[in-house]
């Protein structure tokens, strides 16, 4: 299987520059500089490769880059390493095992959009390990002259600055991240204007996920067709899936898009607790839950998962076996959004707490059937009425959990305890 972001993981000293160089590291970057490949050519290659953003929304990366206006003004690139979506832990490992791929990807992206300054925003919890590894790699890259002023004597300038977050999930939302980098309170902005037109410090800015950027160098080196062809079963390219929850060997797996979920489950050692598969959240806690049977028939690519009424999202696959109580899971998810709402828009600020409190009431054995209707109604009032997608992310799980597991919720209310043991 072809590995891109995770290629270094199995090597000795995976994060070192030497390791990266032995795996064709910085060759794409040198190719661009030596052959003076034009910006538009790079954007076209990325477009043709069909590379989609791996941060959650799955937006076509090449298309996004092409929105940058052609002008002399300052532009910025931001790498989104805030990875806080529950169930997602892929960027964490890229940062610690393959930081140079991120740096090279950031360089290529910056070059393509004409940015002389790039930021990598790491979540605060990465302070102890990933932050250090990334900074060390960046230092090496500076020393080698890949980054900085007058890169490899070409006269080109691109500086990369790492930024450390302070523990807010919402800063992963791209415009909140821009606010945070500007030194303000991390709250999403209204769109339009989109960052590509008016982003960081009101200048054109592209924000991409860590995995997206770390994938870019190999596409440039080996071509768009090569990348596309890595996918199977109508999928294009590859994606890291973070297998967690009720699996024997939780891990990150970089697999072709289109890989059947059952294969992925097998790779992670199958369902744990000697139990059967009950449900899967296939793309991080913000996406709708899917019943186990349906998931076993689903391939891991954008369209297939959409057909299963969910989304591929960030690739955080949360597996749940039959011993898991859905009421408790939903309560836990709701608590997360309640705690992480930035608080600026009314439906999200007031609604997330309301949802969580009703669910807690149910868990405490004080729920009524009417509460379930109320949960659905409130989720409906939040959905589509907020500034950023966090509001929807809080509403969608509620709807899908009730939709798929209504009986279990009813049972809990009637019997004041969970339907499943445990």
């Amino acid at each position, binding site marked *: 299987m072809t590995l891109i972001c995770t290629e270094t993981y199995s090597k000795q000293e995976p994060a070192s520059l030497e390791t990266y160089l032995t795996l064709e590291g910085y060759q794409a970057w040198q190719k661009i500089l030596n052959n003076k490949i034009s910006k538009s050519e790079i954007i076209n290659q990325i477009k043709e490769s069909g590379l989609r953003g791996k941060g959650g929304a799955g937006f076509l990366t090449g298309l996004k880059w092409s929105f940058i206006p052609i002008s002399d003004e300052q532009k910025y690139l931001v790498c989104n390493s805030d990875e806080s979506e529950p169930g997602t832990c892929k960027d964490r490992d890229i940062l610690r095992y393959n930081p140079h791929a991120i740096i090279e990807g950031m360089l290529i992206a910056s070059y393509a959009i004409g940015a002389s300054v790039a930021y990598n925003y790491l979540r605060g919890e990465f302070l102890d390990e990933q932050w250090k590894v990334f900074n060390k790699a960046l230092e090496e890259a500076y020393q080698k002259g890949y980054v900085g002023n007058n890169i490899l004597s070409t006269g080109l300038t691109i500086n990369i600055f790492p930024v450390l977050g302070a523990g807010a999930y919402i800063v992963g939302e791209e415009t909140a991240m821009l606010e945070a980098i500007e030194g303000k309170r991390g709250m999403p902005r209204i769109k339009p204007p989109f960052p590509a037109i008016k982003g960081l410090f009101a200048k054109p800015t592209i924000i991409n996920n860590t995995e997206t950027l770390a994938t870019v160098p190999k596409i440039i080196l080996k071509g768009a067709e090569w990348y596309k062809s890595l996918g199977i079963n109508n999928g294009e390219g590859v994606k890291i899936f973070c297998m967690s929850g009720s699996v024997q060997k939780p891990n990150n797996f970089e697999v072709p898009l289109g890989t059947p979920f059952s294969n992925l489950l097998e790779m992670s050692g199958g369902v744990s607790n000697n139990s059967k598969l009950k449900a899967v959240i296939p793309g991080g806690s913000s996406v709708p839950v899917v019943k186990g049977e349906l998931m076993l028939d689903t391939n891991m690519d954008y369209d297939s998962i959409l057909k299963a009424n969910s989304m591929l999202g960030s690739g955080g696959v949360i597996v749940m076996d039959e011993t898991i109580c859905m009421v408790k899971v939903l309560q836990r998810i709701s608590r997360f959004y309640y*705690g992480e709402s930035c608080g600026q828009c*009314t*439906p999200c600020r007031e609604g997330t707490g*309301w949802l969580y409190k009703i669910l807690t009431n149910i868990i405490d054995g004080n729920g009524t059937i009417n509460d379930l209707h109320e949960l659905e109604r409130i989720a409906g009032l939040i959905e*589509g*009425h907020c500034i950023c997608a966090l509001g929807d992310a809080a509403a969608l799980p509620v709807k899908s959990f009730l939709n798929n597991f209504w009986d279990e919720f009813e049972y809990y209310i009637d019997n004041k305890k969970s339907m499943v043991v445990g």
Partner: protein
Amino acid sequence: MEIFINNKSYTAEDGETIIQIADKFDIHIPRFCYHKHLSIVANCRMCLVDIEGFKFAQPACSTLVQDGMKISTQSAKTKNAQKSTMEFLLINHPLDCPICDQGGECELQDVSLEYGDDHSNYMQFKRVVVDRDVSPLISTDMTRCIHCSRCVRFGEEVAATKELGLLDRGENMKIDSFIEKNIDSELSGNMIDLCPVGALNNKPYRYSARTWDLSQKKGISPHDCIGSNIFYHIYNNKIVRAVPAENENINQTWLSDRDRFGYEGIYAEDRCKRPMIKKNEKLLTCDWDTAIKTLNQNLNTLKNEKKLDSLGCLISPQSTCEELYLFQKVFREFGANNIDHRTIEKDFDYQQDYPVMPTLGCDIKDLEAYDNVILVGVNIKKEFPILSVRMIQAQNKKTQFFSINFQSSNEDFNPAISLALRNDQLREFLDYLSNKTNKPNYIEEKMFHYIFKYIKSNKKNLIVIGPSIGQLPNQTEILYSLNQYSKKINADFGYLTEHCNNTASWLLGVLPHRLPLGKRVDKEGLNAYQMIEKKLSNYIFYNLEPECDFWNNDLVEDALKTSKMNVFFSSFMTPFIAKYADIVLPISTFAETHGSFINIEGSYQAYKQIIRPKKEIKLGWEVLNNLLFINGANNYTFDTLQNEIKNNIQDFDVTTNNNFKLSNQPLKYIQKDIFKFTLRNTYNTDQIVRRSKSLQQTRTGKLKNILLSNDLFSSHKKGYLEFIDKDKNIKSELYNSDQSLPHNTIAYQSYKIGDAFVGARTGTVKIKS
């Protein structure tokens, strides 16, 4: 382009939002976070409207119109979206409307009436936010906050001083100041107006009335020369609060705290309540008839004995146009020549060449048309807070500000250069800018570099002279040098004046050397300083506080002591008046009379009586009119008086050049010893503001320490300060150092009765070591 709202067609421009079009055509869309003078954040989600082609309702405040867009403000989708926002807002909002001052004018209450439900589905605990005491002017009930962030954006965008911010997140997000009692900007009261609910309320007004019982009268600010428009709210013939009256040309939708809370001074305990006359060394109440007759008799005696040269007639430029005009008219009819309003000045050598009426040199709203504005002798934030708003707006449009003052000005906008100079240095500095000879060595080279780089004669430049210049013993010299410089850089010339009606005082001839409209007098009288210094035998003081409103209050006391007759037309009974008055005539404040002011851009603004005065207090203009009448002149009504003034001034061209040429180059002022000056503190500027209880409780209101420049402070080791001001020995423990003062300088912060102000406003002192 054409858009459709509720199936009706409207024309709209590219870049407009749905709410702007709706507002233009009076189509109601509820909103909380949107405000036309603040940035758009679309966080309250109250304005959601149904737009064809969109799955969900979209915010009208942030959605730009597009050609052919079809919007419905009435459809079920719109109503449901708005209802859901309302439901969310109300779950945590307390139901304490009956005890909330906002009740009756609460935007949430209004919308709730329309969209709210009559019961709540929310069965959980409601959020409670602990309140802190953030300001003497604003009361907080943060449990009522709906997080619209208007107050925060006001601080960030309009006042450019962020006093309230958002803390925590999600449901626990709250509006708070980072430091307790931290709200003390000069514009903080605007947050009260902006807050759509009762979270931020007017503290002094708290619980004093229900809004529906109030009546409203329009007034013009008497506290500065900007002339902000104000609505006074009245309950039982008492002003209980003030809010801005919108005037896009002047104060827009804002009001300074001084204008909002200044009126409280009217209700001070030391109001003069009855006419009084001194008999056997005792000041006793009498009736109006006796008071006026005695005054008239005394004046006529002076006239008959041809002793009017011994009469000094002084009036405050805080008086209305009608009072100012009648004042000079009455005393000129008697034959007096010593008439003046410039009581805070010392040096009058400039007066022959001065413009007929000083103005800003441009309309207030046009400040932003200048590339460079050079402010000399003024701290806008402290002295003209409402103008800060305009200057921040101008700065956002790329106007550069340069500030030269005796203390480096702390402004809400960011002057490109802010210099602190002594009065002797000021002239050297200005002369160097004009002639490039004798470079002052106390200014960094890079400052000059910057000034010469940007302030060029091919740019649009404005020089603004502040009221502090008027207090200088060498004001003429500074005006002369500024004049030279303005020619050099081709600048417009403008003034900001001490009080609300200095412009009218000049125009209406309240001067020893000019009649109304700048006409020459036959015989020139004494100026304000001479009248005091020469210790005349008779004085008329109109609207003046002898302790605080003069260049040197010690000299005033000396003069009062020795004179034969001291007549006070006054609203307040000050200690000096109680001690030295022979006749006291209790007159109206600005609020108790009809009146008018001419603001610094030359706009004549009239207003009607706001409240009736107490029984024995008379309207100032009526008393003056009475004096005229009993001497055989025609009786004015207020209207005939106002018309006479209007007719007089209507032909006067406001745009006449402010610039003037001084005939003689003044001698160079030599500074000996330590330069001493008095700061014009925001809440000390006039007798009404000095009596506003709420304003005096603010941090600014409480300032009283004497400030020493760093060099003086560090060489001074005693625990108290002892210095000689003229021949007076002053001792004080209230002093500290101030980095923003130039070397060898000491500044008084206040000139309230009983505070540290002593002697001359500017001059020299010697410190005793």
